[in-house]
Structure formats: structure tokens, C-alpha cells
């Protein structure tokens, strides 16, 4: 047990460090902030530079423009890259999920067309899965694709997607559509790729309860796609989407923002019940200890995951606990900090509230984090079923034609 690179990893880290030193930006360009703001140009320029040097997707095969590297090399690069003021990365959904899905099922010409531009940051992709009628239940998609009446073999897509990250600046997307409403729901779906610039596609930002607009609604009205834009076999879209979602598992997610350190600083500066700093309050000290222990537990869980990668093993299921713990902590820690301020806690003006209202931001953003990318409840189901091997829920929708399924709102 140690915290050292193997000799090969140390050599790779040195190489990466030198390259970043020579090539990474020296000042923050205010790249994409994930909400479509910031400087997209800076993000694209940095992505192109990484692609030219083989660092854009290190684990991709060389024929795709990757480096044919190992997951631990990708981790090392990301660790070193994070030490530089590089711009935001709006390409990850495309490179991590959409493009690998398309490439898995597409012919050579399609791969040649899309892989390179995506890798170089010239084209951005989004993933169009969730719908108003199905968030956790992705297979309940109602957006339909029907054969064009002109007999051309083309398809016409109509319907609505929701919670689509980056749709407003995406060039392409992959979309799950209902192609056979007479089949049970998992068996009547087909995946297509679409050009997001099509006039039949309308993107509307969602105004979140937290105030921001990081996600979109996407409306499809008779969007015509060629049959060659089909990804995978007809009515095989569920299987195809599982490939996408498996790639999603590799993306490491979790809460950022104010944590135990920030709480401790704020508690030091805030008067407590008897006028002494709130940090002397025993109830708050116990909570602070709990959050520290959780944060350390997650940090060292990541260390265990990386150890498995370093040893060439598949990481164990322990990596699945991150978001459940961190999202709930963001909510609890944020709210405890706000309550610590007593009546003053209602104020979230960044000029007045501690740490530019970072705790208030956590309180307002945490409900979204507990839902996005798998709700707390779905993630617990996943742990119970895939990690512990407990049975799936009793299903009432498996053998019923989709069109006959009861629907609520």
C-alpha cells in the first residue's frame, strides 16, 4: 500500500507534465461553463491541441485518433491537466457516450465522418434520451419515428426530449425513438443520429429552480432522417442505449462546491448560541466530523478504484457510491450552514452571504444533483441489483404493447 506511481506511470506522468507545461494555457480563458456561456472558442482550441498530441481520448484506439492507452493513463492526464487553468470541456458527453455508441454500430464511412471532428472539438454531440414522460424509465420514450409517407425509406421524427445537456450548442445528437408501439416497450425503440441544425428541431432552455439553465427541452417536428442514420438494428434501440449508458458509468460524477473546509471556515467566523464562534457548538462539530469522514471515504474509494485500474483490473462496484453520498451531503451541509446563520440565513445575496452564497447555491442546486444522472432511488436499485445481486422489481410493463400501457401525466 503506497501512494506512488509505478515506474511506467511515473514516466508517463513526467511526459504529460512536460507537454502540459509547454502547451496548456497560462491563464484561465473562461471556457465553456457547461451552460453555454464562456468562451467556446477557447475550449475548442484546447481540444484541438490535445487531439493533435494524442491526449484527447487516451484510451481510444489509434485508428480513432486515440492513443491506445490505459485507463490509468487517462486518469494521470486528467490529474495533471486539472493543475492548469484549462477551459471547460463541453465535449465529454459526445466523446464519452454518443460517438462511441455511433461508432460501435456504424459503417466505416460514418465513423470516418464523425470520429475525427468530434475528437478535435470541431463538432459537439448531445444525448437525447430523457422525456417528460420518462426520466428514470428511459425505455418509456414516446418520441416516435415513422416511415416517411413518400416511400423513400426515410424516417420522420416527432416528439419531445428533456434535460438535454448542451443541446443549445450541439451539432449532432443521438435520439431514442419509438418505432413500434405495438411491441412491449423495450422492444419497439430505435436509435438514430440527428443533425441538431435541422429546422424541425427546436431547443428551449429549461429554467431551473436554482436559477440557471444548464439543460434544455428539445422539440422534434417531422424531422426527416435517412435510414442510414439509424444506429443499430430497427427496434433494437434499447440495447443500443445500454451501450451508451455503460459508457456513462465511466464518467466520474459528484458534487463540487462548498464542503467541510468551507463549512469550518464559515463556522469560525459566525457567532454561535453563546456568542462564541459557531465552530465551538458541539452539534455542529459532530456534523463537521461526519462530513469530513464521508469526504475522506469517497476520496479513498476513488483511490481504490484507481488502484484497480493501475493493476489492470476492472474497478469494483465501490465506485458507484459517489453521487449518492456527495449529493446528499451538499444538501445537508449547505442547509446546516444556512441555518447556522440564523435569521440572516435567508439572505443569498453574494455580497452579504458568506463565501459569496456558496452554501445557498448548494441548497438550491442539490435537489437537481440528487436527480440528475440517476436519482438516489435508482442508484440504490442499481447497487441492490447489480452489486448485491438482489432481484429486480416486479414489472407490469414487460409484456404489454407500449400503446396499451397505462400512462399518467
Amino acid at each position, binding site marked *: *500500500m*503506497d*501512494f*506512488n*506511481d*509505478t515506474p511506467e*506511470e511515473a514516466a508517463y*506522468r513526467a511526459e504529460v507534465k512536460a507537454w502540459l507545461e509547454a502547451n496548456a494555457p497560462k491563464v484561465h480563458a473562461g471556457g465553456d461553463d457547461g451552460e453555454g456561456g464562456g468562451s467556446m472558442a477557447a475550449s475548442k482550441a484546447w481540444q484541438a491541441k490535445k487531439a493533435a498530441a494524442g491526449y484527447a481520448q487516451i484510451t481510444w484506439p489509434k485508428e480513432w485518433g486515440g492513443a491506445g492507452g490505459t485507463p*490509468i493513463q487517462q*486518469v*494521470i492526464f486528467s*490529474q495533471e491537466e486539472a493543475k492548469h487553468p484549462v477551459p471547460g470541456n463541453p465535449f465529454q458527453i459526445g466523446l464519452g457516450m454518443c460517438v462511441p455508441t455511433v461508432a460501435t454500430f456504424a459503417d466505416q464511412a460514418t465513423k470516418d465522418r464523425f470520429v475525427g471532428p468530434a475528437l478535435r472539438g470541431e463538432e459537439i454531440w448531445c444525448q437525447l434520451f430523457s422525456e417528460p414522460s420518462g426520466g428514470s424509465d428511459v425505455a418509456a420514450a414516446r418520441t416516435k419515428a415513422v416511415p416517411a409517407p413518400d416511400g423513400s425509406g426515410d424516417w420522420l421524427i416527432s416528439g419531445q426530449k428533456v434535460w438535454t445537456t448542451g443541446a443549445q450548442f450541439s451539432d449532432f445528437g443521438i435520439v431514442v425513438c419509438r418505432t413500434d408501439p405495438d411491441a412491449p416497450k423495450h422492444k419497439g425503440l430505435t436509435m438514430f443520429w440527428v443533425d441538431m441544425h435541422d429546422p424541425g428541431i427546436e431547443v428551449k432552455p429549461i429554467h431551473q429552480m436554482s436559477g440557471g439553465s444548464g439543460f434544455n427541452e428539445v422539440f422534434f417536428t417531422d424531422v426527416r432522417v435517412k435510414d442510414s442514420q439509424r444506429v443499430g438494428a430497427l427496434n433494437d434501440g434499447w440495447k443500443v442505449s445500454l451501450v451508451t449508458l455503460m459508457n456513462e458509468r465511466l464518467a466520474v460524477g459528484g458534487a463540487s462546491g462548498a464542503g467541510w*473546509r468551507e463549512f*469550518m471556515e464559515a463556522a469560525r467566523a459566525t457567532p454561535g448560541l453563546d456568542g462564541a464562534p459557531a*465552530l465551538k457548538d*458541539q452539534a455542529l*462539530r*459532530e456534523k*463537521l*466530523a*461526519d462530513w*469530513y*469522514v*464521508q469526504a*475522506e*471515504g*469517497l*476520496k*479513498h*474509494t*476513488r*483511490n*481504490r478504484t*484507481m*488502484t*484497480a485500474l*493501475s*493493476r489492470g483490473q476492472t474497478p469494483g462496484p*465501490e465506485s458507484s*457510491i459517489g453521487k*449518492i*453520498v456527495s449529493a446528499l451531503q451538499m444538501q445537508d451541509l449547505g442547509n446546516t450552514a444556512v441555518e447556522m446563520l440564523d435569521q440572516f440565513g435567508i439572505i443569498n445575496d453574494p455580497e452579504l452571504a458568506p463565501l459569496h452564497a456558496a452554501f445557498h447555491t448548494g441548497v438550491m442546486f442539490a435537489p437537481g444533483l440528487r436527480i440528475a444522472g440517476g436519482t438516489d*432511488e435508482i*442508484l*440504490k*436499485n442499481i*447497487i*441492490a*441489483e447489480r*452489486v*448485491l*445481486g*438482489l*432481484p*429486480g*422489481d*416486479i414489472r407490469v410493463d414487460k409484456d404489454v404493447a407500449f400503446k396499451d400501457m397505462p400512462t399518467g401525466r
Partner: protein
Amino acid sequence: MAHVNFDFSDDQKFLKGEARKFLEANCTTARVRGVLDDAGKAYDEALWKAVAEQGWLGAAIPEAYGGLGLGHLELCAIAEELGRAVAPIPFASTVYFVAEAVMLAGDEEQKAWLLPKVAAGEIIGCMATSEGPGPATAASLKTTVTDGKLSGVKLPVTDGDIANVALVLAKENGKPGLYSVYLDGEGVTREVLQTLDPSRDAAKLTFKNAPAIRLGEAGAGMEIVEQVFDRAAILLAFEQCGGADRCLEMAKAYALERYAFGRVIASYQAIKHKLADMYVKNELARSNAYYGAWALNTNAAETPLAASAARIAASEAFWFAAKENIQTHGGIGFTWEMDCHLYYRRSRQLGLVAGAPRVWKERLVSHLERRNAA
């Protein structure tokens, strides 16, 4: 964050596997019940002897003192298996507390006298700090030492009824020190206490002018005890992780075979989410324990923080897993015949023996305050 090699090595995993096999054969829950159900039986002597023969008592003791000289990671691996098996032996008292204290603060003579005896299983040790309700502090301490004679009352002292030697926290000239007392000698009376976990005995020790030898510097008692408790907390955390994982396994196995309303109860989300919560807490505890193991093995400056985090996470995880394991079993889980209560009881014993979680939370935050102020 640097890259890491943050798991047991293949050799350590092999040792752990062998330990599990050995305990599955020699420490069944029937054996644990042999101690639990017999008020006259303080520990499983045959198991204690067998464990000594395996060399486990001296796993972290240097070869020069009769140990195997393996290291603390190996001891952590063994501890996890002992916890999983709810082993009814004075392993923690003797190895995590007394041997660690002597290795940490003892002089050459003390090491040469005690460590080989521990490694050979010839001696049982115990740690005597508590004097009654609430944590023992420098201010609260009433036991005293005068002219090499120790007097006072200590309770509870885990394994105090069977130990040959006690390390006793006491004041000399008004300052706390740690003293070694030979319990089979004069001036010592012992009284067995009734506790939540009868598979691990505890006693009230009354000292009247018992000959005592100081361990470490005069006046350094609290500091030494803190360091010893840090080391013990990390090792205990592995026992707790082992127990907590076993509880999750028991709950899962039962949930998969028990039917209610026409289907296995493991198919209800109320049960699935409960078990998922156990899993999350167990993994957080394991990750913190691993960091503790690394700190212990390298004698890192972060040891107090790592020990606190490991202690808090593992105590919480074992308690949660033990109580929700009973809940998952339903009525049968509340019977004496089911093994659930062995773990429930042990979770209380392990969760309190080195100090309650809230004491460790306070220690942790105090350390963070000092570190941030520095």
C-alpha cells in the same frame, strides 16, 4: 491527488484468505456462543492457543522480539477476519492496545520482556483507562501512583478478569502517566462486570498499592494513550468492517430466501434500499480504514486524522449494519438462536472500547482546527 497503490497486496490477500478459512473452521458462531452462553467462560482458550500457533499475535511484532515481523497491513487483514468471525478472544486488548503501547513507548527491557510473550500467546494484556461514566481526561483521573505503587479503581477494563498485565492510566505528582501493573501480583482485585457483549469479558480492577512500572516519559500519559488509541482504532476499524460486511451478507442471504406476500422480501425496494445503504456505509468505512492502515504502516503524521475517520466511519457502519440486519430478519432476528445479536452486541463492544464515536468526532475536529490554524 497522487496516483496510488491502495489495496492489499496479493500476499496480504492470501494471508487474509487463509485467516478466513482458519476461522471458518475454528471460530464458528457455535464456538462464539460457547463463551456467550457460559457466564464462567471469559474467552475461548483453545482458539486463543490456535491463533497463537498461527503466529497472528506477533504479526506486527518485529522478529527480534519473537514476532513474524510482517507489518501492520498484515495485522489489519487478520483483524478484519477476526471481526467477521466475532472471535471471542482477548486479541484486541493484548495486540492492538498493550503490544502497540509497548512498541510505541516501552524501553528496551519492557519490549524484551513483554513482546515475545505476546507473540507466543503466553500473556494476555489489557488497557485500563476508564474510571466510570464519561471519557477519562487528565482532569477526571483519580487513580494515583506514589513511590511506584498504584492505587485506584478502573472500570470497565476489557479482559481485565483474565489479563496478566494491565497498562493503567494514573497520575503521579499530579501528572498523568501510563503504568504497567502485573495483575497476578499483589494489590489487585478483580470483579467481572455484566456487559452488553458477554462474548468479550470486562472487569472492574481495584488497585491498592500495586507495584507499577512507568511506560514512557513521566507526565506523557495522555499523549501516549492517544497515540495507542489511534493505532488501536485503525485495527479495530478493520474488525468493525469485517463484522459489518458479514451483517450485510447475512441480511442479503435471509432476504433472498424469505417470502412475504408471495415473493422474496429481497425484491421489495424497502429492503433493497436498506441493504444499499448498508453497502454505502460499509464501503466508506473500508476506504477510511485503508487510509488508516496506510498511515499506521508508515507511521504517517496524518495518523490521528486517519484513525479518527476510520473509527467514526467503521463504528457507524457496524452499528447500522448490525441493527438493520436484525430488522431485515424480522421476528426471527430478535431470537437468541439467530446469530444477528452476536454482531449487534459486538458492534457495541467495538464501538465503545476505544472511546465512543462522539469523542472521536471531537478529537477529529480539534485536529482539523489545529491543522488549519498552523
